[in-house]
């Protein structure tokens, strides 16, 4: 079976979702073990894929065996970037799943099987988007990701989460249809949906590559994915959707959905249109970097004004998306900006996962949803507070953590290409992160423990046995944030070795 690993990564959660839906309604205790088994299988398979990519090279898989001619069937492709992202998705999803284990006593326990079904289907969408090599298949999986996200946001019992979900639904649908229009235009011009095939067609036919159809296709695909990832002027839905949804859903969606959209943008750029788009149109790519700078500034400023922990973290996501989009469009000759963006996708997935898990633990165990509530937290819960500290330091970019290395490569790329404004924004936002997180550290470490700390449970007295289920994934996430930073070398080598160098060869041949 080992030759089918790329497809099993996607299929395991799909079967898991269907089996949970079939048996979970009868016996709710089956849901969690089934979901855990499915995601563990995906995790093992994605390790296998990463191993194969690292030792042998890129891995193509043709669904249905329709290998030739190219583009008749659907191709899956695992290489240096997306195999690592597959692994990151599996890890973050497993952590979020362990965190979200449901108890019988909770008030909407009857619906918990459907929470697990939606959770697993969201994983299917994320895995599928990441591994596919077909432009239309991406759209189908974006649909799955989007529909499950709307459901997971709205499943929260509060009215606010329904409103946020509706906003998210309207904007997300516009984004997805923009992507679809873009793919339609692309198909009209080249007659193929296979990414690698489109790439060769565009490289061989410059008159098609420079036509207005292709330009429009690129614009609409980009607008679509930017809407999906919440880049600056299109970010309005993001903070509400991710902060008002139940923390079980937020732990999965906040770290992954935006990052996978960033990955789609990178894949479309170098896998379909070619990086020439960036280097040959310096005016346009400078404009995109400027938008990214706007995103960084807007995210940081919004984060400064927030007093709610989760909302503050959501605003930081907008800034982080700016890092990655800007890094991708730097267009420096060494492709260090692109490398930094790709590495930052992984780093940010881990950091955001760590911080959101921590915010979830604080909210569930201490009822602490606002900064003031965190007073004296370190003495009450040293492990959770320590893990949050690690995540915060990574977000600021303190050396041994992964956040430092992605900023290092991004700034290196920006210096090479002379985008000084981007560097200023990057450093400025690191400074803002430092202010934000040290403010929290001060409150949490040196603040007074409130008198009524034992009774201020926020109506959720689920300590003891279940607290361990919530804290364990948080600690793992914090450890991974640290490890990804310390062992950044092999990750960077894999990213550069398999993709960035290939791009340079391709663009030199042209």
């Amino acid at each position, binding site marked *: *079976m080992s030759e*089918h690993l790329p497809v099993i990564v996607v299929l395991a959660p*799909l*079967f898991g*979702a*269907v*089996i949970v*839906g*079939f048996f979970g*309604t009868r016996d709710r205790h089956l849901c969690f073990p089934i979901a855990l088994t499915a995601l563990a299988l995906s995790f093992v398979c994605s390790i296998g894929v990463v191993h194969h990519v690292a030792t042998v090279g890129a891995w193509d898989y*043709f*669904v*249905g*065996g329709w290998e030739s*001619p*190219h*583009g*008749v*069937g*659907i191709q899956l492709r695992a290489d240096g970037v997306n195999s690592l992202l597959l692994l990151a998705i599996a890890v973050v999803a497993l952590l979020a799943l362990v965190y979200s284990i449901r108890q019988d006593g909770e008030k*909407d326990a009857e*619906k918990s099987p*459907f*929470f697990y079904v*939606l959770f697993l*289907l969201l994983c*299917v969408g994320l895995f*599928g988007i990441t591994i596919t090599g*077909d432009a*239309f*298949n991406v759209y*189908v*999986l974006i*649909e*799955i990701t989007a*529909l*499950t996200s709307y*459901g997971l946001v*709205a*499943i929260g019992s509060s009215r606010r989460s*329904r409103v946020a*979900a509706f906003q998210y639904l309207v904007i997300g649908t516009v984004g997805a249809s923009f992507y679809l*229009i873009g793919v339609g*235009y692309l*198909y*009209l011009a*080249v*007659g*193929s949906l296979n990414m690698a*095939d489109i790439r*060769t*067609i565009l490289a*061989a*036919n410059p008159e098609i590559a420079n*036509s*207005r*159809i292709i*330009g*429009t296709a690129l614009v*609409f695909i980009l607008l679509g994915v930017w809407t999906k990832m919440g880049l600056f002027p299109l970010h309005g839905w993001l903070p509400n959707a991710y902060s008002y949804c139940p923390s079980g859903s937020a732990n999965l969606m906040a770290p992954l959905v935006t990052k996978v959209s960033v990955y789609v943008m990178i894949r479309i750029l170098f896998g379909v249109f070619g990086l020439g788009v960036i280097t040959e149109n310096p005016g346009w790519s400078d404009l995109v970097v400027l938008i990214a700078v706007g995103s960084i500034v807007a995210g940081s400023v919004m984060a400064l004004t927030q007093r709610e922990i989760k909302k503050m973290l959501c605003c930081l996501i907008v800034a982080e998306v700016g890092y990655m989009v800007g890094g991708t469009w730097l267009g420096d000759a060494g492709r260090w900006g692109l490398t930094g963006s790709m590495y930052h996708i992984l780093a940010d997935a881990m950091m955001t996962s760590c911080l959101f898990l921590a915010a979830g633990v604080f909210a569930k165990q201490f009822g602490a949803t606002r900064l003031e509530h965190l007073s004296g937290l370190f003495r009450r819960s040293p492990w959770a507070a320590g893990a949050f500290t690690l995540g915060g330091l990574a977000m600021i970019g303190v050396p041994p953590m992964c956040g430092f290395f992605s900023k290092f490569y991004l700034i290196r790329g920006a210096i090479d290409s002379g985008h000084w404004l981007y560097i200023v924004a990057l450093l400025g936002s690191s400074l803002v992160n430092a202010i934000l997180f040290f403010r929290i550290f001060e409150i949490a470490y040196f603040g007074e423990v409130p008198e009524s700390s034992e009774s201020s449970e926020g109506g959720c007295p689920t300590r003891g046995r279940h607290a361990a289920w919530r804290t364990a994934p948080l600690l793992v996430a914090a450890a991974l944030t640290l490890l990804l930073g310390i062992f950044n070398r092999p990750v960077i080598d894999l990213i550069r070795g398999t993709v960035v160098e290939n791009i340079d060869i391709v663009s030199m041949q042209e």
Partner: protein
Amino acid sequence: MQKLFATIAVIITGAILLNAVEDFPRFGDPHSPPNSGVSGGSVSSSVHYLQNTYLDTRVPNVVTAVLADYRGYDTLFETAVILTAGIAVFAILRVVRRKDEEESTGSEEKACSGEFSTSDSDGEGRHRVVVGTACRVVVPLAQLFGFYIIAHGHPSPGGGFQGGVVLGTSFILLALAGGLGSALGRLREDMYLRLACLGVFIYAGIGLLSLFFRRNFLDYGALSGLLQTGGEEMARSHGIFGVELGVAMTVTSVMFALFANLSTRGELKGGL
């Protein structure tokens, strides 16, 4: 002010879209890129489909073969999208009342308990002679037609999605004519939820079978030994029919689930 911004955004979007129209291939042009491919790329998939579909799959309807075999991986996820829609609407809208709460409210109707069972109290008992009789004639015909569309996807337009919609409509018709209770009596809530999951399971399961014959996922040709067909082509044809059945199950039950939950705001009783 907001309307002004929206109008400007729409006009700009439209202008960008129309800007490229000049470069479009002529409508119905047989030599346009989607129809005949582009030099430098591989052979156009459209040409390949038209020339080889019958040889590969013994399915005269090219659309069905492309949908369920060549690009069956997409269709599997389209089916999963439909399942997602059904589950999401259920998870958001469905009002779940526990038995204890129900007793305290003193509702005279034996409504939904914690286990999602629903009452059958309204509907059959009422005197709706004309509608009821018409329904008794139309519903079996509609269902028969639905099965016909599913089964006839191979030689003519049709297949699981269309047939599933017709089948789902027949249950909605029952609900419209005799009350939701009578329709739920025939297709219970726990049944349609399971049926929706089973549909996707059948689709993905048929695809998974080929892995055991050391072939790629969704390669129905691998099933020729299992199905005792002469060649791989007939096995593909049967495989397509199998997945169409799975699609039809999911579509039927999600159609009905959406109607039942949306029309009664998740209460699954009375309504309309």
